[in-house]
């Protein structure tokens, strides 16, 4: 296969040498079936070893390689070079502080995931010897979509609310909390209520729907957030009960 040389503009930031991020250009010979991540690796291997970026599975499921390509948050392992015309601009995810080059600070994101208590909460835990909980395909279907999130954080990069309210719990975390609330095995939605419906919870969302536009796994976090608004409102009024383990 013939390679074709493509121009990449990559936002570089090396805090030990630069005070501010700036773009640097690279000419990269690309194979026709390359994804943007392949080009980044080619730069790292053969052109400039100082480029830092995260990646791992390169099949769209580990969630490491989210970046902005021509301004859109994408998984670079699933963004084909051939689908872009002219110069390709690669930047770290928006709405996250930049640690270095294309690497952003994710600890806050992980704390938000943790804040919604994304685990099964029950009054009584069944013993393993007693076998599985029965769950019908319909009950599974109710939350399945929201369990598909790979934590790639593209939705956080796209969310206009997070741009102005950095403390907003955010689409992925709320979708995950909602996923557990909808799980027939769970009895803990009261435990998640404060995180999901508190000051930085669902009501910060103004339904820009950007999260669902960029989600590579079709989780539709906007749907989760807005379903959670309805559930939360009904719980607040007492129409729907809060399930609690205490």
């Amino acid at each position: 296969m013939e390679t074709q040389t493509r121009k990449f503009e990559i936002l570089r930031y090396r805090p030990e040498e630069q005070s501010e991020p700036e773009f640097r250009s690279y000419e990269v010979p690309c194979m026709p079936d390359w994804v943007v991540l392949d080009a980044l690796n080619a730069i790292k291997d053969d052109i400039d070893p100082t480029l830092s970026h995260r990646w791992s599975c390169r099949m769209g499921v580990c969630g490491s390689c989210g970046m902005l390509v021509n301004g859109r948050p994408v998984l670079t392992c699933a963004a084909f070079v051939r689908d872009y015309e002219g110069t390709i601009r690669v930047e770290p995810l928006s709405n996250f502080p930049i640690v270095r080059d294309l690497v952003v600070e994710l600890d806050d994101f992980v704390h938000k995931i943790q804040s919604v208590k994304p685990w099964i909460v029950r009054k009584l835990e069944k013993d393993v010897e007693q076998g599985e909980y029965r769950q019908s395909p319909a009950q599974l279907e109710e939350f399945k979509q929201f369990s598909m999130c790979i934590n790639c954080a593209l939705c956080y990069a796209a969310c206009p609310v997070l741009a102005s309210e950095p403390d907003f719990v955010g689409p992925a975390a709320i979708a995950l909390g909602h996923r557990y609330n909808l799980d027939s095995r769970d009895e803990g939605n009261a435990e998640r209520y404060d995180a999901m419906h508190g000051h930085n919870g669902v009501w910060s969302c103004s339904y820009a729907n950007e999260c669902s536009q960029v989600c590579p796994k079709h989780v539709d976090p906007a749907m989760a957030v807005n379903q959670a608004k309805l559930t939360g409102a009904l719980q607040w009024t007492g129409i729907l009960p809060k399930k609690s383990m205490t």
Partner: protein
Amino acid sequence: MEVIEHDILLVGGGGAGLRAAIAACEASPDVSVGMVSKLYPMRSHTVSAEGGAAGVARDDDSLELHIQDTLKGSDYLADQDVVEVFVDAAHKELTQLEHWGCPWSREPDGRVSVRFFGGMSVKRTWYATDKTGFHMLHTLFQTSLKYDRIVRYDEYFATRLLVRDGVCRGVAAFDLRTGEVKCFLGRAVILATGGGGRIFPFTTNAAVKTGDGMSLAYRAGVALKDMEFVQYHPTGLPGTGILITEASRGEGGHLKNKHGERFLVEYDYGVGDRAELGPRDMISRAEILEFEAGRGLRGPYGDYVHLDLRHLGEQKIDQRIPFVRELARNYVGIDPVWEPIPVRPVVHYMMGGVDTDVDGATPGVEGLYAAGEVACVSINGANRLGSNSLPECLVFGKRSGEAAVAYASQGASEGPREALVGQAQAEEARLDALRHKVGGEKIAQIRRELNSAMEQGCGVFREEDSMAACVDSVRQLKGRYADIGIGDSSRIFNTEIVQALELGNLLDVAEAVAVGALARRESRGAHTRRDYPERNDADYLRHSLVRFAADGPRLDYRDVTITRWQPQERKY
């Protein structure tokens, strides 16, 4: 230097590591666990497992059958006492995952569904569509978040085990974020870093699978066991090596050559009537033989065969194996509903690994445990059956977590820590020097040459000459590795340093694989030699053990544990 102390230290945060961490917390109410991982746990390669996890679940199945299938699949190289322990615990662990919220696919009556898998005689593979590993990993990660006592050190790269008087008491690791080396001290250390498939160029393995834990243990004096057994998965996408799950065959998909023949059925490759449901080693060999007979299809990345799912229909594909459709569409532009998928054998899994006993403890170094793909316990022998590795992570992750807590609570003497901290400081000096290292060799170049040497020497079919050449090449590359130059001397998130250290680990693992392979003069499971095509139980019904020595690896053997099942000819 900052010294961080926990009771139990984990290196690696994938399926086995997270399971071990949770088990440790459940085993003791006040144990503290430090989890050192070079990536955020939910990025770990467990995430890429697709097809499912085996565990006896139905009336037509039994522990006995699962044991027999596993042993036969292993070509009788698995330790039978360990397989019994494994099979007995596997289904319980999968149920435990169900209790923790794993979204297993369900039957209409609400029970967990099971599907067929290669080499398994009945349906016993639990699945969550075809993203089983993803769902298991996220369930484990999310469940681990409820324990404050699991303290995570995400994006810390472990570079050395701290061993004093034959007892492992910690690990030196550097924080990618700051470049700072820290000294982690604990009463027991569990390795759960996964395999090292990246020694090969064409692999389903993620970039992070560089054999780090294997190298750590190897350098600390533990043997690497059965390293010559490398599993080729028969259905990877050409070029990228992306895995197309075995579940696609479990659900009824067919493999076809360029004449559209189901070659596994029409030519005798020893796979038997069950054809597409044969074990991975045999089907991979059959594909290569098909290529050699000129019946493969030609593509830009070499020969391939077709995986035909069209007869399953859109509905079944979307319901059971949607990820296969997504991957095929995204990466090769083919919709399996209408067209067959091009596939070829691809390096997938290492049966070998750090030598451990049934509790994950490593003989020779006290206080050190290993679980998951990094370990060789051994249930997989010469060929792992598909869907046994996910429960392996759970079963032996749990066992090693519990064993580590038991060991730690025996009150092993604290002893002076200066020696340990001193080792970490030496590590700090080594990394500082590495950051500023000047040399003529390039990391990427050595890695490429290593990959191509391994592919030529230790592929699906092996021969004396090419393996000997491979051993030589790896040794030369090890020499050249000493002369690499580093272009990035910065501290903050320096991924070039990570790549340099990973390359060192890859070289260790590759050498162990090549040395083990060259010495095993028989064909067994995934280790197939053209010059010794028969299995030789008289001489080689033994585990190989490769030990580190300054002047090159030392090879040794240990008998396989046979209890109730005598080795038989492996026919399907």
